[in-house]
C-alpha cells in the first residue's frame, strides 16, 4: 500500500546525502543551518526577555500591590483594636473623633481585605482572607457588646472588650501577618526572577556563533576565500545581541537590587514598625482598662518600643522623634497610675492635650505611614527603571537575529549560484 511512497522517500534521502557531500551541498547546508539557528535563537531570546518583562509587570501589577494591601490590612486591624480600646476607655459616651477613628480603621480593613482577596490566586491566601472576614465580624460584634454594656454602667463591658482584643491579638493579627509575609516573599521572588540571565537563549547564541565559525572554516577550505561577508555580518549581529542581552539584564538587575534593598526590605521593616507601634498603643490602653497589676503590660509595651527603636534605626525621622516623645508621655502615665491618680493616667493616655500620648502616637503613626508610602514609591520606581532597560530588548533581539539570518543567506547565495 505504502511501498511506492517509501521507495520515493528513500530515494530522495539518498539523493540529499549525496548532494550534501558536494560543495554546493555544503554551502546550502551552512546557509540553512546558520539562518535557521539565527531565527530559532532569536525567537528563544525574545521569548525569554519577554518573560523577564512579564515578571517585572507581575511585580508592578500584582505582587507589590498585593503586599501593600496586605500591609494595610494588618495595620488597619491593629489600628481598629487600638481605637476600640481608646473609645472604651474614654467612658460611657466616646467623643465623635474617637468613634470616627474606629470606624475609619474598620473601613480601611475591609478595603484592604477586598484588595487582598481580589489579587489572591493561591487558595491559602483566600482561606486566610475568609477567616479574617469571619473573625472581623465576630470582633466588631464583641466591641459593640462591650460598648452597649459600658453605656449602661455594667462591668461586663470590659470583659467583652478584653475578649475582643484577645480575638484580635491571638487570631486576627497572626492571620493577617501570614498573608502579609507570604506576599512580601512573593514580591522578592518576582524581583529575583527579573534579574536572572536568560541562559537558554545565550547558549543558543553561542551555538549559532560556533555554527558560523565552523561554516566559515568549511567554506574557506572548499572555496579558497578567507571570509564570507554575509557570515561576518551575521556573527557581528549575533555578538551584538549577546552583548545587548547581558548588558540589559545586568542593568535591570542593578535597578532590581536597589528596589530590593531600598524598597522591599525597607518596606518590610517599616510595616513591622507600624504594627509594633499599634500593638504598643493597645498595650498601654488595655493596662488602664484592666486596671490591675501592670507589670506584664509594661513588659510587653517596653519590649515593643525597644523593637520599634531597633527597626527605626538611629537616623532622625518624624517617627523616631515621635517614639521618644511618646515613651516619655507613657512614663508620665505609668507614674500617675502608680501614684494612684487614675484620671490623670487616662488623660495622659487618651487626652486631647498635644503633650498626651494620643498626639505623640498619632505623630509616630503618620510618620511611619509617610515613610511607607515613600518606600513604596522607591520600590515601584526602581522596578520600573529595570523594566525600561528591558523594554526594547525582545523586539531588538528578534530583528537583529533575522538580520543575521538574512545576511547569512544573502552572503552565501553567490557561492551557491556558481554551481547552478
Amino acid at each position: 500500500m505504502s511501498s511506492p511512497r517509501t521507495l520515493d522517500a528513500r530515494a530522495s534521502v539518498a539523493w540529499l546525502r549525496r548532494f550534501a557531500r558536494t560543495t554546493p551541498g555544503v554551502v546550502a547546508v551552512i546557509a540553512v543551518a546558520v539562518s535557521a539557528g539565527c531565527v530559532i535563537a532569536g525567537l528563544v531570546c525574545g521569548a525569554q526577555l519577554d518573560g523577564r518583562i512579564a515578571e517585572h509587570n507581575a511585580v508592578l501589577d500584582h505582587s507589590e500591590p498585593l503586599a501593600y494591601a496586605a500591609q494595610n490590612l494588618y495595620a488597619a486591624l491593629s489600628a481598629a483594636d487600638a481605637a476600640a480600646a481608646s473609645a472604651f476607655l474614654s467612658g460611657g459616651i466616646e467623643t465623635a473623633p474617637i468613634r470616627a477613628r474606629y470606624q475609619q480603621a474598620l473601613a480601611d480593613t475591609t478595603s484592604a481585605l477586598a484588595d487582598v482577596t481580589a489579587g489572591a490566586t493561591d487558595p491559602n491566601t483566600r482561606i486566610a482572607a475568609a477567616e479574617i472576614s469571619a473573625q472581623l465580624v465576630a470582633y466588631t460584634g464583641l466591641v459593640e457588646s462591650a460598648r452597649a454594656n459600658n453605656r449602661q454602667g455594667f462591668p461586663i463591658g470590659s470583659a467583652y472588650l478584653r475578649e475582643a482584643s484577645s480575638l484580635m491579638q491571638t487570631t486576627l493579627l497572626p492571620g493577617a501577618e501570614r498573608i502579609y509575609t507570604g506576599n512580601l516573599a512573593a514580591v522578592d521572588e518576582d524581583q529575583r526572577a527579573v534579574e536572572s540571565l536568560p541562559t537558554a537563549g545565550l547558549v543558543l547564541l553561542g551555538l549559532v556563533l560556533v555554527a558560523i565559525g565552523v561554516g566559515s572554516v568549511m567554506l574557506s577550505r572548499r572555496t579558497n576565500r578567507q571570509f564570507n561577508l554575509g557570515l561576518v555580518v551575521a556573527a557581528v549581529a549575533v555578538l551584538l545581541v549577546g552583548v545587548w542581552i547581558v548588558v540589559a539584564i545586568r542593568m535591570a538587575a542593578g535597578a532590581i537590587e536597589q528596589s530590593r534593598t531600598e524598597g522591599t526590605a525597607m518596606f518590610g521593616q517599616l510595616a513591622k514598625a507600624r504594627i509594633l507601634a499599634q500593638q504598643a498603643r493597645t498595650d498601654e490602653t488595655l493596662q488602664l482598662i484592666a486596671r490591675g497589676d501592670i507589670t506584664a503590660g509594661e513588659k510587653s509595651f517596653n519590649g515593643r518600643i525597644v523593637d520599634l527603636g531597633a527597626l527605626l534605626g538611629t537616623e532622625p525621622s518624624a517617627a523616631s522623634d515621635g517614639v521618644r516623645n511618646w515613651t516619655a508621655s507613657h512614663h508620665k502615665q505609668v507614674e500617675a497610675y502608680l501614684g494612684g491618680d487614675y484620671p490623670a493616667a487616662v488623660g495622659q493616655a487618651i487626652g486631647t492635650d498635644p503633650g498626651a500620648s494620643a498626639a505623640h502616637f498619632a505623630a509616630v503613626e503618620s510618620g511611619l505611614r509617610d515613610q511607607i508610602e515613600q518606600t513604596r514609591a522607591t520600590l515601584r520606581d526602581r522596578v520600573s527603571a529595570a523594566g525600561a532597560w528591558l523594554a526594547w530588548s525582545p523586539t531588538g533581539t528578534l530583528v537583529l537575529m533575522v538580520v543575521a539570518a538574512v545576511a547569512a543567506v544573502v552572503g552565501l547565495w553567490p557561492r551557491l549560484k556558481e554551481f547552478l
Partner: protein
Amino acid sequence: VRARIVLALTALVLGAAGCGSSSTPPTAVTVAPIEAQPAGAQEVTTLPAAGNADCDREASLRPGPQPRPGGMPPGSTMAAIAERGRLVVGVDQNTFLFGFRNPASGQLEGFDIDVAREIARSIFGDPDRVDLRVVDASQRESALESGQVDLVVRTFSITCDRKDKVAFSTTYFNANQRILVVKGSGIASAADLSGKRVCAVRGTTSLSALFALDPRPTLFGVSSWTDCLVMLQQGQVDAVSTDDVVLFGLAAQDPNTEVVGPSMGIEPYGVGIKKENTDLVRFVNGVLDEMRADGRWQRLYDARLRSLGPSPDPPSARYQD
C-alpha cells in the same frame, strides 16, 4: 422496541459525552465558624489546692485601744502608712455592687471600696487617701505577701488554707455560694449541675467547692467573674457558681439570668492583711467594731446592697485571744 433501544443508546452516548466534557469546579473556600472565648478560659481538670478545714477560720485578733486618726503609735505598720500618705488597697473592678468601675465617673465604687475608705478615714481622718489597686482573685495572697498592697478588700473569703499565708480581719460580710443560670434552664440546685458546664474564677473557694461535687460537672476557669457571665451569655457554659453577692451583681447586668438554689456553703468575707502585720489586723478589727456599733455598716449596706434584700445585721466578730 428497536426505536427505543436506539433512543436509549443515543441518550447513553450523549450522556457519556456530557460526563467527559464536564469540568470539576475550582475548590471553593470554606472556613469554620468563629467562637470567641474570654482570654485564658480553660477547662479545669486538676484539683485546686487541697482544702484544709481544720481551724476556726473566723477567729481573728482582738483589737487593743484604738488609736485616733493622725495619732498612730510610732513604729507601727499604721504609722508607716500614715508616713507614706496613702493606704494602698487591693480591690476588684468587675464585681458589681462590691467593687466596680463606674463608667460615667471612671471611679471605683462598691461595698468593698467603701470599707477600704472607712479604714483610710480611721488612719488619716480622710476617706479619700486611699490608693485602689485592682488585683485578680488569684493574686490576692501574693499581692499581700509581696507588700504590693497593705490590705485586700475584695470579696475575700476567709479559709484555713489562706490563713496559712495571710491574716484576716473579723468577718465583715457573710455570703452564700449559689448558682446563676439562664431563666428556664431547669437547673434549681447543685444536684442539677451534673453533666453541665459550669464557670468559676481560678483560685477561688467557689471553684474548689464545685470541684468537690459528685458527680463533678465540666468546669471552666477564667480570670474574672464577668468573664463567666460572658461565657453564659455566649452559651459556652450552663451555669456560674459563686457567692450570692457576686451572682446578684452579675444578674443585675442581664435580666435573662437568675440566682437559684439553696446555699452550698457560707463564705465569710474578711479584710486580708500581711501575716506579719498583727498590729494592722488589730487596728482593722477595731475599725470594723466601730462600724458595727455606730451604724456605719448599716448605712453602707443600705447605700450599696439594698438590691440584695433587707439588711441582715452585721456579722458578729469572733476573736481567738
